[in-house]
């Protein structure tokens, strides 16, 4: 499969922003990975295991030659990698759901001395969440495994990622997702749809001045989806649209961000929009904030000056006390676009004290507004971190 992202980087100074794209885009993935990694860094102080150095892992560099479907597979030379699916689904009688299935691989030691199969080279994590928009129910489950005897893993060369019996694989060009836990589950087929969009410069997302601080990053922004979903003790046939991200790299961050707000939106005029902003500890918006516009056949990178994200309405989590903006106004003046993004359900907070220790909001959103004077609407997903518990910079700072 050939990538159709021929417009990447065209004339825009994306290089200094893409690192932040990477960072912010998958902030929550980071949070999860970091909780593990920082713990290891802390407890294992004085050992080779302290992470944050490239020690044995490959750096993301320019000139990566993409090839699909091979690059859907794992890239075990890089330390961190994830496969990230979100989407909006509905049943034949219009009952609406949001879903999220995420697989993470966090490298720990590229070549453990211990010959045991249980020696940890990588840790594998996975998250499954379903939002029942009618009832306002938000369900989630999580997995954390070492590769061990094949309890979790990711194959290179093709899309085959699994954690326990949760799997993501290829069925022709389509992606097949199966993740069932107690009380919730999805079995979905995601058509390739609009295909692959490379972010940043031909998929290289630089995050800082240093050449190595970067990652390889692409999305499949609009994947027609069908299958079934398990909620309330019953399986329901569903259809809808999904968004897939795949990213891998080794060294990333320059700390001092307290959190981020990230949007993936699919509009009914054919526009897919990815936007994020990094919030700094002084309350300002980081200049690495960025985005990508994807239209049929072309994608365009956006820098921080090209869009504005403004909170409209807030919701306070009764559990964590975090104050999340769950309604936003988005302005892209150059593109004469003004959008309102509203959470379909207020309570889509993930509280992962038992596993990752990171509390964040990740959920289905509805979009409406005007672009070039014409009314548009759509659906999407919103992720907000750094509103509860320790600021993300502290989590990052630990390693």
């Amino acid at each position, binding site marked *: 499969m050939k990538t159709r992202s021929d417009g990447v980087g065209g004339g825009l100074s994306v290089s200094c922003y893409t690192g932040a794209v990477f960072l912010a885009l998958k902030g929550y993935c980071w949070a999860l990975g970091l909780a593990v990694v920082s713990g*290891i860094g802390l407890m*294992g102080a004085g*050992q080779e295991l302290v992470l944050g150095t490239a020690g044995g892992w490959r750096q993301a560099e320019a000139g990566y030659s993409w090839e699909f479907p091979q690059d859907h597979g794992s890239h075990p030379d890089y330390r961190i990698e994830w496969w990230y699916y979100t989407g909006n689904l509905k049943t034949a009688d219009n009952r609406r759901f949001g879903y999220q299935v995420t697989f993470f691989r966090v490298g720990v030691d590229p070549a453990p001395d211990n010959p*045991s199969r249980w*020696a*940890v080279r990588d840790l594998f994590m996975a998250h499954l969440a379903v939002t029942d928009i009618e009832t306002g129910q938000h369900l989630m489950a999580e997995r954390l495994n070492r590769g061990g005897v094949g309890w979790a893993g990711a194959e290179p060369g093709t899309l085959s990622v699994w954690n326990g019996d949760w799997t993501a694989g290829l069925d022709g060009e389509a992606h097949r997702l199966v993740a069932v836990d*107690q009380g919730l589950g999805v079995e979905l087929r995601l058509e390739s749809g609009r295909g692959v969009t490379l972010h940043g410069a031909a998929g290289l997302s630089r995050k800082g001045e240093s050449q190595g601080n970067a990652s390889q990053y692409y999305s499949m922004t609009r994947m027609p989806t069908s299958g079934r979903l398990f909620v309330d003790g019953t399986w329901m046939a569903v259809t809808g649209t999904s968004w897939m991200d795949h990213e891998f790299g080794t060294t990333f961050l320059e700390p001092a961000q307290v959190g981020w707000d990230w949007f993936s939106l699919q509009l009914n005029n054919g526009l897919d929009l990815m936007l994020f902003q990094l919030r700094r500890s002084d309350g300002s918006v980081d200049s690495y904030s960025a985005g990508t516009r994807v239209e049929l056949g072309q994608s365009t990178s956006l820098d921080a000056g090209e869009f504005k994200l403004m909170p409209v309405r807030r919701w306070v989590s009764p559990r964590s006390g975090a104050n999340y903006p769950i309604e936003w106004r988005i302005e892209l003046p150059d593109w004469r676009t003004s959008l309102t993004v509203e959470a379909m359900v207020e309570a889509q907070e993930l509280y992962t004290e038992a*596993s990752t220790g990171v509390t964040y909001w990740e959920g289905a959103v509805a979009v409406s507004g005007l672009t070039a004077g014409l009314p548009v609407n759509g659906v999407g997903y919103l992720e907000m971190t750094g509103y509860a518990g320790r600021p993300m910079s502290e989590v990052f700072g630990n390693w």
Partner: protein
Amino acid sequence: MNLFSKFIVRAVFRDPVRSVVTIAGLTLGVAVVVAIRLANVSSVQGFETALEVVAGKTSLEIVGAGVGVPETQLAELGWLRQYGRVSPVIDRTAQIETLDGSVSLLRVLGVDVLRDQPFREYRLLRFSEGDQGSSPQELLAALLAPTSVVLTERFASRHGVKLESPVRLRIGDTAHPMVVRGLLLDEGPARVIDGHLAVLDIATAQWLFDRLGWLDRVEVQLFVPDGIDIAEQEIAARLPEGLRIQRPAQRGRQVERMLAAFHFNLTALSYIALVVGLFLVYNTVAVSVISRRSEVGVLRSLGARRSLILGFFLGEAAVMAVLGAVLGTPAGWLLAQGTVRLTSTTVNTLYVTSSATVPQLGFEDWLLSGLIAVPLSLIAAAIPAAEAARVTPLAAVRDADHQVVYRDFPRKPAAAASLFFGLGAWMSTLEAVDGLPLFGLGAALAVVCGAAALVPILLEFVRRFGRETLTSWCGVEGLLAHANLSAAVARLAVSVAALVISLAMLAAIAIMIGSFRETVTYWVGQTLQADLFVATADRAPVGSTATISTAVERDIRTHPAVVAVDGFRGFDLPYGPEGDLIILGAGDFGVLLDYGGLAFKVPADGAAAMRAAVGRDAVVVSESFALKHEVGVGEVVSLDTPKGPRQFCVVAIYYDYSSDRGLVVMDRATFARHFGRQRPTGLTLYLDPDANAEEVRTELLAAIGPDRRIFIRTNATLRAEVLRIFDSTFAITYALEAIAIIVAILGVAATLLTLVLERRRELAILRLVGAGREQIRRMVVVEAAMLGLLSQGTGLVVGLVLSLILIYVINVQSFGWTIQFHLPLGFLAQSTILITVTAALAGLYPARVAAQIVGERVR
């Protein structure tokens, strides 16, 4: 009621020495029973508590055949997740060296903390932030490096261990330098065996314990704990060959069964002291009956019914029994502390590693003591009490000094004795019940009762025919002693019987142990032919899996003086329908036959049969295995292997006294074919005939280096070690027996004292007619010594009979060992002198009392 209590209480106080001795006897008897029970309970309980806490919330566990679960099979067990959470476990023991210089035994759990947290809920102590709590990631972070170990807060504070402290884990022959990366809060599994728990990452555990590719078990925590029965069945039906599902408690039951025979025999021994105590009760009540005949007569004349009289004497026994139980229970608890130390050495050497602590006394312990002591005392007292109740008022008043003197040959005791001996002979031919020698012990008990019945006959014999002998040995004092004894045959019978029984048991046990020791010595000579024996420095029981590392084996094999090496691998394997833990061993048959040897029971040419077993699915089994599981040569045993049950032909049975659990041994090639290649747990080395074993040992140790935890024993030191273990195993036996003898000798002293006190008038008359104090004293001492000698003589004969039952019935049924009969003549001669002297010494106090009686007392 007033009369009742007066009668009883007065009885107890009237003869305080006898009462005190009786109560002391009962106290000791109860104490020994309680002590052994507590010790037995604690050795199993120590293991089971540890098991329970370590098992945590595990509902079921999947275990493999002997070597464990091959980890690759886990991939096929994905379907288990529909039943519950799954966690693989390595469960071992290791020694830890801490900076304070101490070495302690630790239970080591190797787990995948990402999986294991719901099973055991470890919580790490956090120092940095002062708060407590831990996620799987924190635990993993603490454990990830191959040098990381997590210990418990309790252990750490005791040994001055802190975070980042270096420690060394001794596993097999290697001491691994480790760093303490976390401390578990003092709760949950961390409390196990007093904090002696270490947690490793499963990868580290596999590596350090030489278990790469293997798991000790896979634990399952069911989502629906109530559905355990159905889940167990369903999982059992789906498991591949070679894997079994069981509940964690099953391991406890296996250990319990393994220890059952050992514990049963200890319990049986403990009752000897109680039986002796009961004889004292009988004796005391009997004397009480005799000396209070006139009182009984008066009461009867005043209209007291027979039942009241019966009640009086039973009441007396009951008071003593209750006192004995009340004093004996806490005494037993104290005694148990010492017993645990004695027996845990045996349990740890021969069976399992456990750390036993004596449980606190509970209400049920007091109740049980009472339930044992009171009814048995009442039964013991019933015979004399019934006799008292039969006394008619007239007879009692008229014949106040009535005594039983057998005019003719004592027929009743003779009949009883023959009946008991007959019963004993019959019971000794019966089979064991569920591996326990119930009938064997019944036979021993019958012989003991028969011996007790024999005592009045012997005393009567002495009365009739001993006069000349005693007179010629001890002069006039002897004559007087004989006369006194003759007059008191009935009263003495019971005390002497108690002594005879204790002495018979001592003789029997001495003969049994002596024979056993002789047999083991012979066996060691036959079997231990290698020049050097290499083992890891773990003091681990047989069947443990501390292995010898490749580096050490290479150093040994390359030494020029070493001509042959036989690597032995042994481990526990459940066998048979009950899952009895046997020991499966693998060795190099070729080397063993060329250089060493086994003592074969069948066939005569066991070596040829063994040679023929190489390359086939054939095994040799130990005698105890053959006996316990009723397997003969030519028959087939079915052993669980990782590939499912396999049939092995038994080609020979050999003598073995290293473990009563039973050994099945196969050639290492056969073993490897079924169980995979495993590192040896021990090496036997055969040296060049010109080499000096001691020098080679020194050279080998130097070559291997001081960092390796290796014991190399020469043939001579190993033989000595075997006998040392043997002797320590039987230390408890002697201790128990000594207590019984002390009780019995106390009884004899008390009886003599009573006799002296009752014969005041006679003694005073003797003084009046010119007997000196010294003569009176000598007379009483001669009486005592004579009773001691008589008891010991009888005891030796009865003991010989008992030893035959012990050796050929009880021992075979409990442990499955052939013991060659051998009389430890030296020991028996020594003990005869010792007993006679001790009895004479016991007569000193009554003698002093007698000597103080002066003529003026006669009115």
